[in-house]
């Protein structure tokens, strides 16, 4: 089991862990107490996944370059 706190997991980590938890719970070879723990953890992981999915936000910007071709800033890009 991943030891990383759920709230620090990336979407992918939370997803993999959730999948594992669901699998463990569905196999049904764990104690009832453990089942409840698994369920709680699964619910936390699901919340984490949903939070990451809600973060979906589009933000497009183009890099501006100085005369040497080095990046010196951003300018928003619209209408694409």
């Amino acid at each position, binding site marked *: 089991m991943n030891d990383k706190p759920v709230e620090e997991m990336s979407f992918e980590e939370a997803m993999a862990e959730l999948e594992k938890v669901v699998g463990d*719970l569905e196999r049904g070879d764990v104690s009832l107490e453990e089942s409840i723990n698994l*369920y709680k953890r699964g619910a936390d992981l*699901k919340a984490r996944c949903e939070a990451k*999915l809600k973060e979906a936000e589009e*933000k497009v910007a183009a890099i501006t370059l100085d005369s040497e071709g080095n990046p010196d800033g951003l300018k928003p890009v619209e209408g*694409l």
Partner: protein
Amino acid sequence: MSDLIDEPEEGANAPEFTVTEISGAIKRVIEGEFGHVRIRGEIGRVSRPRSGHIYLDLKDDRSVLSGVIWKGVAARLATRPEEGLEVVAVGRITTFGGQSKYQIVIEDIRPAGVGALMAMLEKRKKALQAEGLFDPARKRPLPYLPDVIGVVTSPSGAVIRDILHRLRDRFPRKVLIWPVAVQGEICAPEVARAIEGFNRLTPGGPLPRPDLIIVARGGGSIEDLWGFNEEAVVRAAAASQIPLISAVGHETDTTLIDLAADRRAPTPTAAAELAVPVRMELLSWTDDQGARLTRALGYAITQRNQRLRDMSRALPRPRTLTEWAAQKLDTVGARLPQALIRGVDQRRLRLSHVTGSLRPSALRRTVQGKREQLQARAPRLAPALKRSAERRREMLNARAERLSPQPILQEIAREKRRVTDLSARLEKAGKAQITTRGERLTAWGRMLDTLSYQATLQRGYAVVWGDGAVVTTRAAAGAAQALEIEFADGRFTPGQSQPGPRKSTPKKTPPEQGNLF
């Protein structure tokens, strides 16, 4: 005098040129004659000074022609001139009078057919492959859900729009566009610089470092896409620490950056699909996982509930466990009073057997008989005892009278006198004895002195000892180991220097003196 005579020589009437005049004349002829030429050749040495002009050589197996591409033309070129490329150059020949040189000013330069370009591409691909730049082991996995996506492409045009549209459909993300020229001479350096520039950004900075780079360009001719075959671009893509998707040209076009990239997308749209998952699908997946969680837990509980019920059904009722015992208790309990009664009856019967012969009257008669016997004998007891005591007392008195100490005392006195008498006689006799013996001893002592050989020695005689015995014969003296002669004042060993006072030393004596003993 020949110098005075202006003797005309052959050709001497030809006009005379200055060097500059002839240079100008040549220039006019050459530029007039070769104002527009197409020349096929292989590009030799290429140099690109900071001025922006490009200097190169065109050559074949025997000759070399210098060429120049002015800055303005260079920026427009579809093909970037590279050493080794077989090209057809279009331009005009000019002379350079100052150095007596001529060169071609190139207006356009193209590969000498696709075959030439492909041959060169193949050669470069092999070289880079040998370096391991296309090694599958170098490829990095793409992040599942990148936060920031860097796109290296032209800021205007369909390509970036396609990418953004598809990203928006699937999973809107932050996108940083690094604008570059996607064709022409400046394409390769700009693309290489953009890839390197994205890698140099710091994560989370004002210019956030992307988690993923897409290098994209729409379709075009091989010449149009040539910048993406350039070594600098391929090396930058291979060296990128950030996972990189290439989407250059159409599906059928393969450029070298596609080989060096971590993933190749056939189109810019496909690149966006590789870059992010579909958000709605993930949401539905997450919901699904949640449902499975709930279902699995519910099932776990239901299943246990069922098992509990099954087991409790199989569990025997407590009553059945005790029924048998209760019944037995009842049976036994019912038999108990009767058994008790019977037991008592049996004992009573036995008691009555035993007590049948036991009657108080019989006992009383026996007691009476014994008592009468006792009473008959009791009066005789006291007189009998008295008589017996009387008789014994009389016997005692009779003997006591005969007992007196007088005879014993007389005996003691008589014996005492005898002892005194005897001890006096013993003393007298003892003293007489001692006196007699003392006198006899003195007499014998004197006799002994007279008879002793010592006294004889005093008179000048000697005794000879040999081996501890007295030697009286000459033969004995001869046989003895050692001889000692005893005088009145000590012994002497003949033949020894020291006349020690050893008393036991025998001395050879005349044989006749042995007769004394």
